């Protein structure tokens, strides 16, 4: 009668609890290195030293930080909407933690208990659903603060997250269409197939970033991922030079920490989703080692070794990929300035969403072509179509944009773009006066 | 769930629907009224899904799958319609609010803006 009955069955409750703990505890523990990683890396990129006093290499700095924040005095301002004020941090913290429940950590034979925590047949939808709950944390925080700045932050958060969730859903839909399943386990398994479905390339794995449409979807997904986690350059809801601290202006102590932690959890978990959907999940390198061995027998020992560690240390590789995504997060943060609000909306609605939809059409044509002409020609057709689309886009769409007034292309106007023309008064004519 | 009678789902659907109706009648804020309409739609969804889950056992042969899927289709279409309706309806509410600075439903008795 389906997974929920298995979970609720008397025998299964204990196993389910263990699974949940096995998923939640590593995520909680990963928080500490994640914060440290961000601070040190950011410092390195900005030519600073970063935290290096507490513990070896400053590794214990996050613990010290969080402890300090937790022991600060908790101030609940007058005039807040008490119920939503307390509810908001909970809603900001919980969804990222439970978001990754459908993600497999290793091959089923080796990591039976963890692959995955619960094998949802609609895993991708689950991710989208839970991440949409995450919006409420920010929106309610913004609303309950009884503060104009936090309200603005909440409004921005809701608009931003809704906009980018669409594009994110579309980019995931591309992969779902290509894979033919909403289940994360089978998405990973399909990425272990020969590259592009061509059997002579069977020594390479079919990671979704290596396919043309998957690459496009991956770009869209990464941008949406940054936006969904409110990371720079998409941190408009908490833009400190406009909104003080945005939606969490009125929060202090433990509640503030839970927003902070929620953001990092979201980074980690979206990174996990990205690694699972696009980067081949828990596989170490995009090679099918047994096929490599068949092709090049001289490398047999290496292949055995690699296959073994790829299989048995699978969670490590997944975490490694997550760390790589984390690196991308920080790199982008160190590099790009914050977007303006109209740029944000234009990027989401006029660039990413059409791109993702075009990609979906491309995938559909690819699937059709593969079933008609076979894998090789299908890929050729897909690539040709993609190039044609690119040429069309560059030559028609962007030329049309460039001709127009750059200011006219803004659709959302939050503030008037050009400053009011300052009328410099003509130097007043010197009134002739008798005195001279 | 084993042993849960279909009547339970139907009853819940009925209660939710009634709450929605009552809400539409007694509340003044159009937004809340809108939310109550959503509640009614959801109650209908629940009922339909309960039928889709329970009834196919009485249908023989190939028609069984069709009976089950029909209920789910209805739910999907209701969801899509609700989404479209909310987009337009909230747009209208915003427009009215911009026009007259009030969202009291009793004052919205003029069709011309």
């Amino acid at each position, binding site marked *: 009668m389906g997974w929920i009955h298995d979970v609720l069955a008397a025998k299964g409750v204990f196993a389910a609890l263990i699974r949940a703990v096995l998923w939640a505890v590593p995520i909680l523990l990963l928080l500490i290195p994640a914060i440290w990683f961000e601070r040190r890396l950011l410092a390195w990129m900005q030519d600073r030293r970063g935290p290096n006093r507490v513990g070896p290499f400053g590794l214990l700095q996050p613990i010290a930080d969080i402890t300090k924040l937790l022991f600060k005095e908790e101030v609940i301002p007058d005039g807040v909407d008490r119920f939503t004020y307390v509810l908001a941090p909970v809603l900001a913290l919980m969804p990222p933690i439970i978001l990754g429940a459908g993600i497999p950590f290793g091959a089923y034979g080796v990591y039976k208990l963890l692959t995955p925590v619960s094998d949802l047949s609609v895993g991708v939808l689950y991710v989208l659903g839970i991440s949409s709950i995450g919006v409420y944390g920010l929106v309610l925080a913004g609303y309950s603060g009884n503060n104009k700045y936090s309200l603005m932050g909440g*409004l921005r958060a809701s608009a931003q997250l809704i906009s980018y969730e669409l594009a994110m859903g579309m980019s995931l839909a591309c992969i779902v269409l290509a894979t033919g399943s909403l289940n994360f386990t089978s998405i990973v398994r399909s990425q272990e197939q020969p590259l592009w479905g061509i059997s002579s390339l069977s020594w390479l794995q079919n990671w979704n970033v290596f396919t043309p449409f998957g690459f496009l979807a991956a770009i869209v997904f990464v941008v949406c991922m940054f936006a969904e986690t409110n990371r720079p350059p998409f941190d408009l809801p908490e833009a400190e030079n406009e909104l003080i601290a945005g939606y969490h202006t009125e929060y202090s102590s433990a509640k503030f920490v839970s927003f902070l932690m929620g953001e990092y959890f979201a980074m980690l978990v979206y990174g996990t989703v990205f690694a699972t959907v696009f980067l081949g999940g828990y596989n170490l390198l995009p090679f099918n080692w047994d096929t490599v061995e068949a092709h090049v027998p001289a490398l047999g020992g290496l292949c055995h070794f690699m296959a073994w560690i790829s299989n048995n240390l699978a969670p490590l590789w997944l975490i490694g990929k997550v760390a790589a995504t984390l690196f991308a997060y920080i790199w982008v943060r160190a590099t790009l300035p914050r977007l303006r609000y109209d740029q944000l909306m234009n990027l989401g609605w006029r660039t990413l969403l059409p791109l993702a939809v075009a990609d979906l059409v491309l995938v559909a044509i690819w699937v059709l072509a593969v079933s008609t002409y076979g894998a090789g020609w299908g890929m050729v057709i897909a690539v040709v179509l993609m190039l044609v689309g690119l040429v069309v886009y560059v030559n028609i769409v962007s030329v049309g944009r460039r001709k127009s007034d750059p200011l006219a292309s803004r659709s959302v106007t939050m503030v008037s773009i050009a400053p009011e023309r300052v009328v410099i008064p003509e130097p007043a004519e010197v009134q002739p006066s008798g005195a001279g | 769930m084993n042993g849960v009678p279909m009547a339970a789902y139907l009853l819940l659907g009925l209660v939710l629907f009634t709450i929605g109706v009552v809400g539409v009648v007694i509340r003044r804020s159009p937004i809340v009224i809108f939310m109550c309409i959503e509640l009614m739609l959801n109650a209908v969804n629940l009922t339909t899904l309960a039928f889709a889950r329970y009834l196919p056992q009485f249908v023989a042969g190939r028609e069984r799958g069709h009976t089950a899927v029909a209920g789910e289709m209805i739910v999907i279409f209701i969801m899509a*319609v609700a989404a479209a309706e909310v987009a337009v309806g909230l747009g209208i509410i915003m427009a009215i609010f911009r026009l007259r600075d009030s969202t009291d439903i009793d004052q919205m008795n003029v069709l011309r803006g």
Partner: protein
Amino acid sequence: MVAILSVLSALGVVFFKNAVRSALSLVATFALLSVLYLTLDAQLLAWTQLVVYAGAIMVLFLFVIMVLNLSKQPALIERRDPKLMLATLLGFGFAGIIGVQVVTPLLPPSEIVKDPVLAPNGFGQPQAIGMALFTDYGYPFEAISVLLLVGIVGSILLAKRRLR
């Protein structure tokens, strides 16, 4: 249990004076309903429910509520009226009539009580729904897509009016 909670939160929708709170309790109702869908073995619909209602529709509602509150209007404050109590009672009485008429025949002696041990093959699974959606239900599907398009155009038009 879930049912009782969802009834309570649905009552909250109607009787909270604060629009944000009633929106929140509606979100809770939707979440609980999606749990009920799970118990009905409709996984796909349960998560779709969460994405569509909790994720999109209710956030829009909250957005609008917050925008309207921005201008510090007492717009969302309600007036109470004894007539309304009567309306409430009538509403529930009506529900009672329907309940007696429709639900009572389905209570335990009836055949339909029994839970089918096996859900129909592929019930609630994405494959079955997808197949049905694009074969038997192709026309309604297209109609819905047109409807959504009209909805998009309409709401954009309503939003644009401000610019004039």
